């Protein structure tokens, strides 16, 4: 009801000079933000037309606020990186017509103030959408992120330093075992000839192998911060610790206290410790590396926003390790998430919203038969939907044609542009002023294809992903490495299809913070039917697990001599 009130007030603010304007234009003349809000509501009503009672109108409003938050962010990003001329009509989430005397959509803070001026006592109801609440949410989210990362850093560093200390201890222990008797009671030791020397050499080489193996296995840059302790690593550290401690215990009791004189025995004791450490290393290799290699489960990763899905085969992993595996493959397999591609074409929505607009203006004073009204609206929506899919289809076909036309223009422009330059051959005598390095060559031919490129990117809604600078860099790259016509394929391939996320400029699109949501503890192993979700702000990846079935392979022996053939005898059929 508040919205309808707001809408009527907005409507009254239309300049009186207009004589019976069509509803759309009247609303366009209304202050921009109000109109975009109501459009958002109508859009939302159009999407969720099955829940049309008054309560959901409010919820729809606040949902739109969340939506607009992200959409506004996208718009900001887009605007910051746009170097081309402004396009007035940018998509269904932005205002298409400027109301007289109103600032553009980007200036969010002033818009909020204006709304507050208009809405005196009703601001309390619309807090879900006001600027203050949004900024508050942002702040809380940012502080939470900071706290989390600080906490994680501490625990990570603790874990790493602990492991390092333990490794150092384990490494130095055998040397200490062998050195201490020499230092403390050298005179009493029995002389130990060839066997000891052999043992010394073997200790030296085993320790070297252990060092190399540990370096290869453990000293790698961690690829992710896990939310929980990595169970196998913790297990191994405990094992090593116990091993070393028990060896020291026995050493202290049997050798130091009693001043063992058989030096060969001492050296053999040290060698046995090194052997045990090597076996622990072998265990580490098996647990950390080998066990996960043989595929046991098939993971299906679906992006919630637009439904792209991929399948992966993994072995026995814990949920958190499987999550990291999925993420590594996500950045390489999934095409980049383009929220602009999700929304319905403008023509469909505007037509719908204008129709609903007519209806909602009429019902501002009905409280008793609201359910009746809402049912009527649902029925009308159901009937109307018969036409909207038709419009959607034609709009889609039209869009396809537009994209193809623009793409054809782009390809022709690029081909033509590339014919303007060629690589300098040694025998060509050219003026030094005319010789260009790749960067200059790229700039020289960029102008002729810039317009076609810009139009194509705008039609396919890819313009936030490619700045002029990035296009120039890519052009320079292509020119440097190849000048044959194949380059046009290579140059354009990047723009014609939406590539994986990792291809685009690092800072903006490679988000590192993901949230793992799971019903089971994340250190549990994968099992059939486990579902977990990897969340980002705009979308989430839903991952479900299925066990690879157990194959019953049976053998059938075919004797090569058994392949024999005869002509078929006459068969007689009665009809």
């Amino acid at each position: 009801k508040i919205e309808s009130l707001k809408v009527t007030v907005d409507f009254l603010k239309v300049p009186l000079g207009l004589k019976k304007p069509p509803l759309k234009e009247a609303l366009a003349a209304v202050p921009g933000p109000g109109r975009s809000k109501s459009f958002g509501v109508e859009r939302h009503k159009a999407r969720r037309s099955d829940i049309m009672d008054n309560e959901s109108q409010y919820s729809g409003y606040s949902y739109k606020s969340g939506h607009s938050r992200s959409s506004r962010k996208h718009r900001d990003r887009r605007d910051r990186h746009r170097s081309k001329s402004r396009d007035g009509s940018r998509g269904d989430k932005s205002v298409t017509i400027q109301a007289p005397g109103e600032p553009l959509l980007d200036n969010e803070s002033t818009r909020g103030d204006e709304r507050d001026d208009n809405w005196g006592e009703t601001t309390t109801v619309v807090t879900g959408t006001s600027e203050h609440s949004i900024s508050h949410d942002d702040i809380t989210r940012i502080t939470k992120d900071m706290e989390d990362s600080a906490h994680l850093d501490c625990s990570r560093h603790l874990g790493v330093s602990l492991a390092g200390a333990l490794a150092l201890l384990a490494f130095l222990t055998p040397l200490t075992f062998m050195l201490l008797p020499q230092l403390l009671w050298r005179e009493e030791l029995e002389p130990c000839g060839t066997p000891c020397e052999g043992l010394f050499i073997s200790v030296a080489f085993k320790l070297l192998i252990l060092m190399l193996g540990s370096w290869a296995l453990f000293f790698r840059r961690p690829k992710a911060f896990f939310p929980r302790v990595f169970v196998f690593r913790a297990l191994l550290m405990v094992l090593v610790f116990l091993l070393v401690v028990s060896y020291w215990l026995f050493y202290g009791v049997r050798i130091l206290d009693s001043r063992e004189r058989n030096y060969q025995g001492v050296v053999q004791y040290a060698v046995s410790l090194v052997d045990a450490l090597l076996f622990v290393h072998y265990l580490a290799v098996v647990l950390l590396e080998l066990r996960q290699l043989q595929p046991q489960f098939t993971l299906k990763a679906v992006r919630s926003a637009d439904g792209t899905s991929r399948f992966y085969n993994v072995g026995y992993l814990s949920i958190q390790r499987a999550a990291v595996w999925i993420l590594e493959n996500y950045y390489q397999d999934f095409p980049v998430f383009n929220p602009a591609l999700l929304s319905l074409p403008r023509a469909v929505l505007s037509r719908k919203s204008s129709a609903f607009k007519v209806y909602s203006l009429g019902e501002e004073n009905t409280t008793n038969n609201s359910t009746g009204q809402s049912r009527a609206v649902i029925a009308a929506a159901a009937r109307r939907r018969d036409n909207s899919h038709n419009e959607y289809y034609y709009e889609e076909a039209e869009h396809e044609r537009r994209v193809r036309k623009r793409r054809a223009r782009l390809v022709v422009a690029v081909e033509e542009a590339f014919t303007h330059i060629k690589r300098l051959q040694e025998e060509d005598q050219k003026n030094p002023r005319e010789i260009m390095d790749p960067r200059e060559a790229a700039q020289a031919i960029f102008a002729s294809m810039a317009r076609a490129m810009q139009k194509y990117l705008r039609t396919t809604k890819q313009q936030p992903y490619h700045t002029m600078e990035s296009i120039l860099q890519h052009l320079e790259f292509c020119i440097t490495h190849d000048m044959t016509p194949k380059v046009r394929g290579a140059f354009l391939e990047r723009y014609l299809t939406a590539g994986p996320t990792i291809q685009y400029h690092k800072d903006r699109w490679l988000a590192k913070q993901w949230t793992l949501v799971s019903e089971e503890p994340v250190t549990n192993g994968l099992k059939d039917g486990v579902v977990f979700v990897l969340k980002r702000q705009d979308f989430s990846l839903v991952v479900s697990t299925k066990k690879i079935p157990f194959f019953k392979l049976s053998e059938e022996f075919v004797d090569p001599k058994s392949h024999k053939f005869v002509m078929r005898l006459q068969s007689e059929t009665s009809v």
Partner: protein
Amino acid sequence: YSAILTFFSSQQRIEIHKLRQGDNLILGFSIGGGIDQDPTQNPFSEDKTDKGIYVTRVTEGGPAEVAGLQIGDKIMQVNGWDMTMVTHDQARKRLTKRNEEVVRLLVTRQSLQKAVQQSMMS
């Protein structure tokens, strides 16, 4: 007069009205042959590489006998469908279509020329 027995082929058009027996429509003869069969086993064909469809048996008093079909006839067409290059099963299907009550066959028959000679001589 001399009777020279020579074989020659003549074409006959035979119209068989199917007989209803229970749930089936039967024609009253058996066929053999087909491009998936062994043509050397065919007792009725003159050319032992002929893979056509031949009538191997005609039931007594059946619709085929009544219409004039004889054992050893080679069926060339059934209701306009060619039967010279079909498999055995295809031939069977073309003859036993459920919605057809009448089949018109074009058959080739080898008959003795003796009769012609006699008429020529006399």
